[in-house]
């Protein structure tokens, strides 16, 4: 199968993730959508790496995972603390500051 299709898939995933960020309210879900986008990137990297026949892309994919993991740590911490003080994880509730 032509690896180019993987790129299309990656783009698709990325878009799904992005739109998820735009429409979902729950902070956790939003965050998961972002992770989805990151993984779309990973897919793209791997696919390209495959097409170019060099390993940089695959290495980068590992880096990305690590970074994503770090993000999870920080992100969950923040979201949880928010949840605990507000008893809601909705990003729309957190709108004290506006205008």
């Amino acid at each position, binding site marked *: 199968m032509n690896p180019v299709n993987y790129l299309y898939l990656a783009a698709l995933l*990325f878009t799904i993730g992005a739109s998820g960020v735009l429409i979902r309210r729950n902070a956790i879900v939003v965050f998961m959508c972002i992770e989805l986008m990151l993984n779309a*990137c990973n897919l*793209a990297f791997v696919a390209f790496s495959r097409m170019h026949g060099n390993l940089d892309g695959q290495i980068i994919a590992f880096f990305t995972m690590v970074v994503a993991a770090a993000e999870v740590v*920080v992100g969950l911490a*923040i979201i949880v603390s928010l949840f605990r003080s507000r008893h809601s994880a909705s990003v729309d509730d957190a709108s*004290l*500051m506006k205008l």
Partner: protein
Amino acid sequence: MSATAVHSLWTTAGGVTSAAPGDRFTAPTIEYAQLAPVLIVVGVAVLGVLVEAFVPRRARYTTQVFLTVVALAAAFAAVVGLAADGYATKNAHIAAMGAVAVDGPALFLQGTVLLVSMVAVFTFAERRLDPASHGNRVDSFAAQAGSVPGSDSEKAAVRAGFTTTEVFPLVLFSVAGMLVFPAANDLLTLFVALEVFSLPLYLLCAIARRKRLMSQESAVKYFLLGSFSSAFLLFGIALLYGYAGTVSYAGIADVVDGTVQQIDPALADTMGNDALLLIGGAMILMGLLFKVGAVPFHMWTPDVYQGAPTPVTGFMAAATKVAAFGALLRLLYVVLPGLTWDLRPVMYGVAVVTMLGGAVVAITQTDIKRLLAYSSIAHAGFILAGVIAASPDGVSSVLFYLGVYSFVTVGAFAVVTLVRDAGGEATHLSKWAGLGRRSPLTAAVFAVFLLSFAGIPLTSGFSGKFAVFKAAADGGAAGLVVVGVISSAIAAFFYIRVIVLMFFSEPRADGPTVAVPSPLTMTTIAVGVAVTLVLGLAPQYFLDLAGQAGVFVR
């Protein structure tokens, strides 16, 4: 696609992997000396974590502050040393296997970041402002970030006099990231550096002592939007990688110039596919523009600036901009010079809307921190004007502007931390009425900062603005200059409004009081004022510095 083709792909790939034993694996050579600034900071940051773990609570504050300051100072010394060794100019080169560039802009920006962080850290360490609760002085960070606002555990923590000394290692990590960010010489490093300096900032935003709900909210917004944008950045990187088959700036640049060594026929269809290049470039650009807070990627700025603990806001506003613009410059000048003519109109538009948008919306702001946030957006626009100039002159003008702006910003936010009432900092503008009567000096200092923001002559703000506009005009972007002056006229309005409020209106009976800070914050403010005036009157030396630092290595 036929199986053979697939197979051939495998074999080719395998051919790469199963290379001759001789050059199977070459150990990377790392020029530790030249990475010293980063290494020092990271090292001490790690040390700081250990301190958190092993040093008794009582001694932590002192230890951490000491370590941090020392680390930053040492790192700065290292930067100066490197510059002295001519790494900024004649023997600027790429270090760490092409991952990091050590050249003029990098060193200049690293120096700026380090100094700014230094003064910012002073405000982090400030402990005289909040009235002492339960006999121990406290800084502007939550007693225990984990505890729910208003809960018993929080009260207990306050009573116990806990303080979040973790902020210092966090700052150091963030600084480390910012040191690498403008020096990153391949996209991967860029991405990693971005995350390294962003993640600690997300956390720092969340741990204000007062107004914790807003603090957490700002953290969430910053975090979500930040990672959203970094996802875009990453995808952009992926596309560029797909385009060039490499992530190193030089490599990509070669492909863009069409001076690539060997084109692998199997990859001709992706290699040099301009769609990938353009889309990827645009997405990376977007990621960086988000960090500098350019319209339309600016919307996080006001909320985060307002919610975050003011010292963090100051640090973030100053250092992040420096690092991000550094990276932006390097990207545009090293990776995509071939794309200048494609990107220029876009950047042009972004600069225009950023300048005008920031200035216009700021007019009606009622919270001093949000006001400064919008002003920082407008300034991002001004700096972009210099970035667009696309000339060494432009680079140095941007560097100069960044240096000027960051110090003024830190100083301004430091002043904001001083004006307090029962509820902590009194950031609502109406409370600043008549401040000039109550404590003329504070008001005067703040007025100086505002005038510098407004770009009134004899302040550093004017020198910077002039340098940038001059570069832009030289670079043939006269239109930007006109828009620039118009928006500075608009911007002048709200800076003036604050001055009017402070000096020309009667003080309110329930008005805030101005806390007398410790030498730490005083230093921060003093440095800000000094830089403002010195660079306003005699900027030549620093212009020379920026001028020498104006050349990127490839």
